[in-house]
């Protein structure tokens, strides 16, 4: 009895303590980053000595700054999301509306497996495919932007599938039946009624996937990201990316100035990811939480 009373008194205290520890830790981490890095945030960090407009219009090559890495990350994310959206949404529709019985269980399980794969494994898969193509097809094939973006698309495919599936399945039965009762076909019901209704859910899933693409480092470091490449010229060239740049700087920095650009890059990446995540949360508050789980 005494033990129980003690336990009951301890629970609020312990929970408050663990919350304070967590808050203190995250404040320290982010505060440290900002305190050390805010001074390096300026135009020179982004564009070096090149005038910003020239850099954005690709008139001149820019060096010693984050511009190539940002362009690299941007094109990588766009490509990867472009590959993943059509397949992901179509597969999500299939899973929510058509699949039944054993097939459904099978696909659910296999997408869970895909969602749980560590990103370095997906990256190694991309690398292994590159070697395979290099040996079998032509020795011109090297790790490049295209292969990186495809591997990233595999990585975020389950997020989009799950978001589509969850928001379609979440539609109320009454809505589901209305159009059918008025004589619409199954396809019309999906395209005209169910999909528009679940658009917020799908969009938030796509935005979360975008955030994952932007932050992932393990996949791109195995499939073509390099420290100095300039702005990527084509799909088949290697590229720079913000997260890889941060990783590279942390281990290879030569002087304090270079380290400062690392802090700057970290703040920019943090800002981009937090913006994307809060956007996704605003668009749809309740995304399926387990869809966010991936080791990376």
């Amino acid at each position, binding site marked *: 009895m005494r033990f129980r009373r003690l*336990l*009951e008194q301890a*629970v*609020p205290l312990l*929970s*408050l303590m*663990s*919350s304070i520890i*967590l*808050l203190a830790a*995250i404040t320290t*981490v982010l505060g440290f980053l900002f305190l050390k890095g805010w001074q390096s945030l300026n135009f020179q960090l982004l564009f070096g000595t090149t005038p910003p407009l020239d850099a954005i219009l690709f008139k001149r090559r820019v060096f010693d700054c984050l511009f190539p890495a940002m362009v690299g990350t941007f094109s990588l994310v766009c490509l990867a999301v472009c590959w993943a959206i059509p*397949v*992901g949404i*179509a*597969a999500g529709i*299939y*899973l929510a*509306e*058509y699949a039944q019985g054993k097939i459904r269980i099978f*696909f659910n*399980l*296999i997408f869970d*497996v*895909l969602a*749980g*794969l*560590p*990103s*370095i*494994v*997906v990256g*190694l898969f991309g690398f*292994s495919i590159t070697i395979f193509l290099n040996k079998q097809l032509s020795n011109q094939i090297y790790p490049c932007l295209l292969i990186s973006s495809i591997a990233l698309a*595999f990585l975020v*495919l*389950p997020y989009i599938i799950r978001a589509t599936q969850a928001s379609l399945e979440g539609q109320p039965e009454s809505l589901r039946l209305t159009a059918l009762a008025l004589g619409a076909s*199954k*396809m019309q019901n999906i395209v005209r009624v169910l999909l528009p209704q679940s658009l917020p859910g799908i969009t938030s899933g796509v935005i979360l996937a975008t*955030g994952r693409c*932007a*932050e992932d*480092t*393990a996949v791109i470091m195995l499939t073509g990201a390099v420290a100095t490449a300039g702005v990527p010229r084509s799909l088949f060239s290697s590229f720079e990316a913000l997260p890889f740049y*941060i*990783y590279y700087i*942390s281990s290879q920095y030569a002087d304090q100035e270079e380290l400062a650009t690392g802090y700057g890059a*970290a703040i920019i990446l*943090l800002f981009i*990811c937090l913006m*994307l*995540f809060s956007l996704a*949360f605003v668009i749809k508050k309740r995304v399926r*939480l*387990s869809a*966010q*789980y*991936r*080791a*990376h």
Partner: protein
Amino acid sequence: MRRTTEQIIEKICFFSALISGFITCSIFLFLLIPGLPLFRGGHFFSILTGPWEPGLGQFGIYPMISGTLAVTMLTMLFAFPLSLGCATLISMEGNFRLSRLLRKIVEMMTGVPTVIYGFVGIFLLVPLVRNFFVNGGSGMCILSAALMLTLLASPTMILLFCDSFSRVPHSYGDAVLAVGGTEVQKFLYVTLPCSWPGILMGFTLALGRVLGDTLVALMIAGNAVQVPGSLFDSVRTLTSHIALVFAADYNSPEFQAIFACAIFLYFFSTLLAVSVRLIHSRWRINT
């Protein structure tokens, strides 16, 4: 006409699902085939249990497996109680504004990129560990990695715990309050026991995430190939081993050995995914 369009679209959806499933399987194949030469000579167990001595022609991944397990277990040891505590505070009614604020911050934390934790780990946590503990060595050790990974694993675990607490029917809790129980008693004797499948699921998912994380361990665990003996030993995880060795010549046994690491990771994460699905389906039946 309309019927054929419908059928075509249904087929397209089916093929998209099929392709996605096919990708999952082909990932396994593309890991297995390059790794095959290693397994062919019956070396399978010697790879899993042997030491990593490339100079002596030994390419066992046992040090990496033990390093991964050490980091993962220590992280879960920190993260599980921490997450349970935070989730309790968020879920318990009473201090409403504080718990809303905490929830917002935790949600925001899920969006922080991994590489940031690694970066701050190198420049803040590692020197701290080095100076604070006498036998801290370089500061790049299991403890540093586990502390940073705790921050990485906690937010989603907290949100999943909160989710499973809120699924317990309100009437159960109201019954406790009606017979004079306190909020704490309601939580301790009703909510917590009723939501154990959700807690187990959150734990399993977080375990998978910590196990497969690359960047934090790669940046702050030190990457020395050794079986860890203490908290302050530098270790190399399976994931960082892949990241460190992949640039080797791709006919060499070193390179083939990283596929053994990847296959191990693949199996383990599949195992976790299957168990999460099992817990989830049992949970649905129960509630």
